[in-house]
């Protein structure tokens, strides 16, 4: 037998105190009364005393002492140990988004937790429990917890995510616990369909259920030439089967039985609805003309909602935001502008451009980006970023010195550098890494920390960075006319990336899937970004010395991004970003085909179970206490 709180035996010190009280109490007290006459007479009426009555007070002392002993044992909380009767259990709990699918009146996740609690409660006291959460990341929530109420607290703290999950990593963790003897039993709680043959030494808590679910994805909007709003998207259906005959039929009524209703909301106002024939387990696209009630300038958001009641609400909504009210980039081209260069800026709706001659240039034009094309200025622009295309001379304060210009006979290829910095990743985002041929280049000596993007013989030919004044610069060290660069796919991608870098908008894309990591651009005049997640959590990204910051969207819904600037022209900027539910997680009938065959350690030992004897001690103590009271009242009354 062991005791949880052995210090409680200090209560036994009350016994000698009790004995002392009895000794003191047994002393006779003196009292003067009018006459002892009646007391003397009463002797005659006194019944013969039972000799045992002498021990009556001693009996009270004994009972009270036993009560104190029982109290001490109660407080010490005795437990009996039962060798090798307790299990050490690992629970692997799937926290993927599909666990939010309903299971009766609760979700699959709630059902899984309930089952886990039920298993834990059936285990003997003294058993130990470990929880491994299977999500985007494998995480051990608690390790070898023996207190069942504490275990339940840990279990309650695990929440389902909007992300996908991989069971392999967490099962490897479970295997590790089996191998090192931490555990002898593994339970896997998941909604993925897994066959018994795929499992060995794993107990499955299957919370999958056959329910119908619809989801909506890839919604986009555009305006046609008549100014009408067109919305397109995809609808998916799971958990049912549309007969082939219906799929191939032209019967609208038959098809209507397998259609979902999609309602459209423009700027929060309820609008039209459309019926979408939804064949299970495949893409069902729709395209709807919502008219010209709202112009593109006034459009803020378009939301599509599936109106059918199904097993999961989260994937029934998709919102697209119009953040085009964010600043347009103003571009000034100084010198001889390449036509492809002009063509690019003309097509980019987020930019506006102007071309001036070198003579007209003063340096005080105040554009977001000033491009010096085949012209080397004497002064840098007072504001904004500078691009130098084909500049053969140095500019004071630019951070680089132009050396010689070289002709390459037969041409040469530029190669992408091996830089791993965030800036390089941003500048080369979505490039195809085409071969770019040049026949001429200018060699530069870099005095500042520029990031080379394209090199020739390890010489930086195309590079970007900040000069000593902190102004952003992009240098293309060759004349576009002497290269095939303008005709390559990467020309548009790089120009887009250079534009974003030079006049960074916090972001250019406003739609992501849950789990996607994006990069926020942090303009020079940005103080901080405050991101509010769909669940209301606020996260702050400080500018500090960084130009970029990565961010992962791990919740489904609308994110509010507020940018705080230090300049007075634009003090704050607000954007809405929609993070959509992963459509594969809306599939109610997903199977996991991997095998999870775990090996238990040969000499794996079970733990020692405990039997809590507290209740019996309390009963015995209560009996002693009651006996003492009965004896007292009998004596007195």
């Amino acid at each position, binding site marked *: 037998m062991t005791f949880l709180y052995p210090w409680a035996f200090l209560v036994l010190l009350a016994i000698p105190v009790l004995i002392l009280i009895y000794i003191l109490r047994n*002393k006779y*007290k003196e*009292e003067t*009364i*009018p006459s*002892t006459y009646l*007391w003397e*007479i009463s002797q*005659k*009426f006194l019944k013969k005393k039972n000799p045992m009555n002498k021990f009556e007070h001693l009996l009270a002392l004994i009972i009270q002492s036993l009560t104190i002993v029982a109290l001490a044992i109660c407080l010490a909380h005795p437990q009996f140990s039962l060798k090798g009767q307790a299990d050490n259990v690992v629970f692997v709990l799937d926290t993927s988004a599909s666990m939010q699918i309903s299971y009766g009146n609760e979700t699959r996740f709630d059902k899984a937790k309930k089952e886990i609690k039920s298993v834990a409660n059936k285990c003997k006291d003294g058993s130990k429990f470990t929880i491994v959460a299977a999500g985007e990341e494998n995480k051990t929530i608690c390790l070898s917890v023996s207190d069942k109420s504490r275990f339940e607290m840990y279990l309650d703290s695990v929440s389902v995510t909007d992300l996908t999950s991989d069971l392999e990593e967490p099962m490897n963790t479970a295997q590790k616990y089996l191998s090192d003897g931490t555990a002898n039993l593994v339970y896997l709680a998941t909604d993925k369909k897994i066959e018994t043959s795929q499992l060995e030494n794993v107990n499955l808590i299957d919370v999958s259920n056959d329910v119908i679910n619809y989801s909506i994805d890839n919604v986009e909007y555009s305006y046609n030439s008549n100014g009408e709003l067109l919305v397109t998207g995809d609808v998916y259906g799971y958990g049912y089967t549309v007969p082939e005959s219906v799929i191939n039929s032209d019967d609208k009524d038959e098809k209507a039985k397998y259609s979902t209703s999609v309602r459209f909301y423009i700027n929060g106002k309820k609008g039209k609805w459309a019926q979408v024939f939804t064949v299970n387990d495949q893409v069902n696209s729709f395209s709807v003309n919502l008219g010209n009630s709202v112009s593109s300038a006034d459009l803020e958001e378009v939301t599509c909602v599936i109106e059918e009641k199904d097993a999961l609400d989260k994937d029934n909504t998709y919102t697209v935001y119009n953040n085009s009210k964010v600043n347009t980039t103003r571009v000034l081209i100084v010198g001889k502008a390449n036509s492809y260069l002009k063509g690019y800026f003309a097509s980019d709706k987020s930019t506006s451009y102007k071309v001036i001659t070198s003579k007209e240039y003063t340096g005080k034009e105040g554009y977001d980006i000033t491009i010096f094309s085949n012209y080397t200025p004497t002064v840098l622009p007072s504001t904004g970023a500078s691009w130098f295309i084909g500049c053969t001379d140095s500019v004071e304060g630019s951070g680089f010195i132009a050396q010689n210009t070289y002709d390459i006979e037969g041409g040469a290829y530029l190669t992408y550098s091996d830089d791993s910095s965030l800036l390089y990743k941003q500048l080369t985002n979505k490039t195809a890494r085409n071969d770019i041929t040049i026949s001429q280049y200018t060699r530069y000596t870099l005095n500042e920390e520029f990031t080379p993007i394209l090199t020739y013989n390890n010489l930086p030919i195309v590079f970007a960075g900040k000069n000593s004044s902190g102004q952003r610069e992009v240098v293309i060290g060759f004349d576009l006319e002497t290269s095939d660069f303008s005709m390559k796919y990467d020309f548009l991608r790089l120009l887009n990336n250079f534009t974003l870098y030079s006049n960074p908008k916090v972001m250019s894309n406003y739609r992501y899937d849950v789990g996607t990591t994006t990069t926020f651009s942090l303009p020079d005049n940005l103080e901080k970004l405050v991101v509010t997640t769909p669940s209301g959590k606020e996260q702050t990204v400080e500018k500090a010395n960084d130009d970029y910051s990565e961010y992962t969207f791990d919740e489904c819904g609308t994110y509010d991004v507020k940018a705080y600037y230090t300049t007075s022209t634009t003090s704050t900027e607000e954007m809405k970003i929609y993070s959509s539910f992963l459509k594969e997680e809306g599939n109610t009938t997903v199977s996991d085909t991997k095998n999870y065959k775990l090996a238990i350690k040969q000499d794996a030992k079970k733990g020692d179970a405990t039997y809590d004897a507290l209740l019996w001690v309390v009963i015995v103590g209560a009996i002693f206490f009651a006996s003492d009271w009965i004896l007292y009242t009998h004596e007195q009354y």
Partner: protein
Amino acid sequence: MKNVIDEQFLQQLELFTLAVKDNVAGLFGGNHKSKKYGSSCEFADYRDYIEGDDITKIDWNLYGRFEKMYLKLFLDERQMQTRIYIDGSTSMTFFRKDEMAVRLAVTLAYLSVKDMDKVSIYVIHDGFAEPVIENLIGKDSFMNEIPAVNKIKFGGDARLSEAIVRSVVGYGDGRSIIISDFLSVENYRDAIDYLRSKRRDVLCLQVLGEEELNPLQRGRLILRDSENDSRFYKSNITRDELSAYQQAVEYVTKRIENFCLSREADCLLVSTTDTMKDIFLDKMVTRRIMQ
């Protein structure tokens, strides 16, 4: 005077009188009947006419019938002498028994004076009955002299029989009232017998405190007698002891009552928690001590 009497209560007492068992042989006119013939209106008997008798008392109807002269005799009204003895021992100082005793004495004294009787109050210390008030007659004198009861001192021993036998008790002329707790081995019986032999009506009022009737003592105690230091009672007082005590109380009060009954004396147990109204207008009326 201490406020021992409620005036409203006194007014209620006007309607009552202390009952007297034997006809009294008082010396003065009062409201009680005497065995001697006198001048009241109540016919008592006939006797032969003797020369010199008052001829106005001759019953001429009888003469007409029997042609012999007979004299009508009428009862004589006589005055009672009430003597009240208060136990002045130490035991009476507990539980306000002294106060109750004085109140009882004053009330009984009033009842007597309102019937034109004489009243004397004595306090018994050791073997002597010390007079407090003697031969008080009339309400006016009562109001003037009754404050003397406030000077009664309680304490020491009180041997009732010795004191009463030693004192002037009178003969057949009234009531003797003993107010005591009767909690002593001392033989009060001698006092009652003596008084009865002097043809006096006897009333014993046993005054006990509520704590004496229902003691609160519990546990291991040495109870010392207030009148005799060498006497004590040592015991662990439990429920059994208390039960035996109750039986002892009943035994003692019953014993006094039975003795008084056997001597044609009245006896009444009074608790210090009883009101004067309860005692006089209820208990005493029920027992026909008052009417």
